[in-house]
């Protein structure tokens, strides 16, 4: 198993839901509640050293439930490996804590996830639309949003 997955299972036994392996990628599904603690632990562990956040992807699995998920892909320059964290969010009001305090680069990733998928990040310093105009209605990457205009 990926050392980071082992580390999380040991350190956060109540938070880790599942560890998945697919095509060499390891994904750890965690509960959304303590995401900031989990991320900080992965960053500050000297052996794992995930000091770099590659991407935050917001996913919509409509019509499945739970519908929304947030995916964090982390990179370790020390070991040259990656780990993916995934948290499923509530259907009606998808909210998760912001990880901007762990990696500054999360700022724009989270703004984009908010702008296009409507996921709220609690504690984000400046959570407003980033790509679309501020007065835009709706969240285009949600599955019910039409791919082209009327």
């Amino acid at each position, binding site marked *: 198993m990926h050392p980071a997955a082992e580390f999380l299972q040991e350190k956060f036994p109540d938070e880790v839901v599942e560890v998945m392996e697919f095509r060499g990628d390891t994904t750890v599904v965690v509960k959304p509640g303590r995401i900031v603690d989990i991320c900080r632990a992965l960053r500050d562990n000297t052996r794992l050293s995930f000091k770099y956040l590659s991407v935050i992807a*917001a996913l919509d699995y409509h019509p499945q439930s739970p519908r929304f998920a947030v995916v964090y*892909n982390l990179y370790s*320059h020390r070991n040259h490996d990656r780990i993916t964290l995934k948290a499923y969010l509530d259907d009606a009001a998808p909210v998760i804590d912001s990880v901007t305090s762990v990696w500054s680069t999360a700022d724009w990733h989270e703004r984009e996830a908010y702008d296009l998928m409507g996921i709220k990040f609690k504690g984000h310093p400046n959570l407003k639309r980033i790509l679309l105009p501020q007065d835009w209605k709706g969240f285009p990457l949600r599955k019910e949003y039409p791919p082209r205009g009327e």
Partner: protein
Amino acid sequence: MEQIERLPRTETMVLNVGPQHPSTHGVLRVLVELDGELIVKAEPDIGYLHRGIEKLCEGRTYHKCLPLTNRIDYLAGEVNAFGFCLTVEKLLGIEVPKRAQYIRVIIAELTRIASHLFWLGTHAHDLGAMTPLFYAFREREKIMDLCEMASGGRLFPLYFRIGGLAADLPEGFVEKAWEFVKEFPEKWKDYDRLLTENEIWKERTVGVGVMTKEEALDWGWSGPMARGSGVDWDLRRDNPYSSYQDFDFEVPLGTREGDTYSRYLVRMQEMLQSNRIVRQALEKLPKGDIKVDDPRISLPPKEQVYSDIASLIHHFLLIEEGVKPPKGEVYQAIEAPKGELGFYIVSDGTGKPWRVKVRRVMDGLGLSNPAFIKTEHLIADS
């Protein structure tokens, strides 16, 4: 006589920079707060070139996403398709034949040189030096010609396919590429002589836009931007894909504390390293197939489509229904000319991606970083 009290005006001024017209490079609007000529605060406004590529990908087969991916970074068209193809191939669990891998490397590294040349020309132009642009574009044009030769396209070659390449290299390509590889280091000296020790150039780049190593990691910098700050990281070397482990090359690092001049030096050296990789790939170019031998992924040869009913059906099905990766999610990143370019693709087992998330290089640039548009710099230098 009326006494007029004169007080120095101490309030700051807000200046709106841009948005630049789409035909100029990088459409961006920045709101800057100025105290005289010094920047106090800067807030960038991006999104002027947002085209909804991620949403568009969900409505078409994997192959039909390729023209969209070419446009993510239009200065390095085929490199974006490179990343997308590798991600879908990872989903499928396949590896393309060695010859295709080498040809992909040749095109990708030539594209890197072209992208860096564009940066060099326009960067110098923005700082008031007109001449380097003409030299840089002279060589870039030759790379465009090579792309055109291989695929018919210049900015958007659309040459890579899921499972390999659209076609083998045309006759004469290797010779023409050799010509370029041999003369490029000589031409490179022209740019070097124009700028590297140029007093005005140094005056405007040394000590400007300083980013420490820690800041660079924290703000998600990658590629030459991060290496300029001393982050020793290159995905081609550290997580090799497409046979990069077969080539001998160095990863240049910034020699000074992460300023614009340091990033300039890194990119300059990278061009020579890319040239070196192309040279080795041309030397060692293996013979063999250029796409995987799997009827569920590769199109049949065109001659057979016109003469054989089974091949016609096969062609039709692949175009209409597309390749069908198994259910799953993967992330794959490559070293694009400007940094880490990654795709996170969710497959639901059908011929169309359920979700494509592109990790553009821009995401990591952290233009929102107050340290990047460095406050307390002169407006003209930033």
